[in-house]
């Protein structure tokens, strides 16, 4: 059900990621101020954009689940948020490294984007514990969906609030400062971004397909050899049925 196009996506991901790496190390010029270290930007920013996009996508799938009751949407929502959390760790780590290399401190509170991201991360880090603490699978899915919708709506509001509150040390690499990014850097950035999106979608589909296959296997075992054949379902935060 989820496996369609997986091979094409995988190949595309490999190509794009390799291409992005090549561009980053061979094509993009060193930044005038920050030097070589600035190149981590090509990893950090796409990670952040895709992670945030993943959280919002999780919220959108959650809305679909509540509207249609189709547990497939719950699974899509769960995997999107789950992957975005992992990417989120990457964002915080790379952001920290960049901060240390550029401004000498592992964490700087004055960057609204990083702080906003931390808050969003803290919120979504509760997603799996929340799911885990609800026994009934249908209720678990429904409550998780409500949470994902609240979280998704929270992302823009949070960024607004924190941005208003902070001075602007964090380099605004997108938006109106587009003019200050030379063409080579912009191209490299775009390729990195597309590569990251492609990678995310590929991983997302892989996890969906894998979980779905496990579900079908379990259902088959139970159908063929009786309810006891597959052992009791362990408590889990992941959806167990579609």
């Amino acid at each position: 059900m989820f496996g369609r196009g997986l091979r094409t996506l995988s190949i595309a991901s490999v190509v794009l990621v390799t291409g992005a790496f090549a561009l980053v190390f061979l094509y993009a010029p060193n930044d005038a101020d920050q030097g070589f270290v600035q190149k981590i930007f090509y990893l950090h920013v796409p990670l952040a954009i895709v992670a945030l996009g993943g959280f919002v996508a999780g919220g959108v799938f959650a809305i679909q689940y509540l509207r249609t009751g189709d547990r497939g949407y719950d699974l899509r929502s769960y995997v999107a948020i789950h992957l975005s959390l992992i990417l989120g760790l990457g964002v915080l780590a790379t952001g920290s490294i960049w901060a240390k290399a550029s401004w000498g401190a592992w964490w700087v509170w004055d960057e609204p984007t990083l702080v906003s991201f931390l808050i969003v991360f803290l919120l979504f880090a509760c997603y799996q514990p929340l799911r885990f603490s609800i026994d009934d699978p249908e209720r678990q899915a429904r409550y998780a969906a409500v949470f994902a919708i609240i979280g998704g709506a929270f992302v823009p509001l949070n960024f607004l609030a924190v941005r208003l509150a902070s001075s602007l040390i964090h380099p605004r690499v997108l938006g109106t400062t587009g003019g200050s990014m030379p063409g080579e850097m912009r191209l490299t950035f775009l390729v990195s971004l597309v590569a990251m999106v492609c990678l995310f979608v590929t991983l997302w589909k892989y996890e969906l397909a894998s979980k779905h296959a496990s579900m079908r296997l379990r259902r088959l075992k139970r159908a063929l050899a009786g309810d006891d054949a597959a052992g009791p379902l362990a408590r889990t935060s992941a959806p167990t049925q579609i």
Partner: protein
Amino acid sequence: MAPAIELSEVGRAYGERTALSGVSLTLEPGRTLAVFGANGAGKTTLLRILATLLRPHAGRARVLGRDLPQDGWAVRGRVGLLAHEPLLYRELSARENLQFHARLHGVAETRVEALLDQVGLRRRADEPVRTLSRGMAQRVAICRASLHEPELLLLDEPLANLDPGAAEAVEPLIGRTAGPARVVISHDVEHGLAEADLVLGLKAGRPALLDPAGAVTAGDVKALY
């Protein structure tokens, strides 16, 4: 008049476990359905589905002429549930509890007084529910369930904890002669059978027995346990 209950292959799962499946029956207005079964057989699940508290996962359910779950809102307020828990706020008095429910159902408060009189709780009506004995709390719960004059009564062991005097006092509210169609879960086989028109026996969520009361003996029922 439309039947009070029409079920067709109704089922409900809890995760991988099937709590209820394949239940089909029709209950005419004013009739009583007795439900028997061991603990965990699905009796409470069935009751809660009929009360619109749970949605069926399979099959069709119509209560008082309306389909569930879509038209659940039209059924609420016409159904009275007496559950295992009394559903009363223990820190509030019987009177306050009933007044609260009266407001939620749009029922005049005079009815609260009439009911308290009927079940013989006038004297203790202003004490917190937690000070009442289980029998008295049960009487208050019965008042709560019949406060809004429902057309269908769903009763889970209604006479538990009631002494014979109290049981007699509540008969006009929730008994066979009260009027509304009733679904009664009971472990008192003889009494349950005597009061029923239709008998449903559940075993592991499936209907093991479904017959008019006249055709069922106590032995048939006890075989379910």
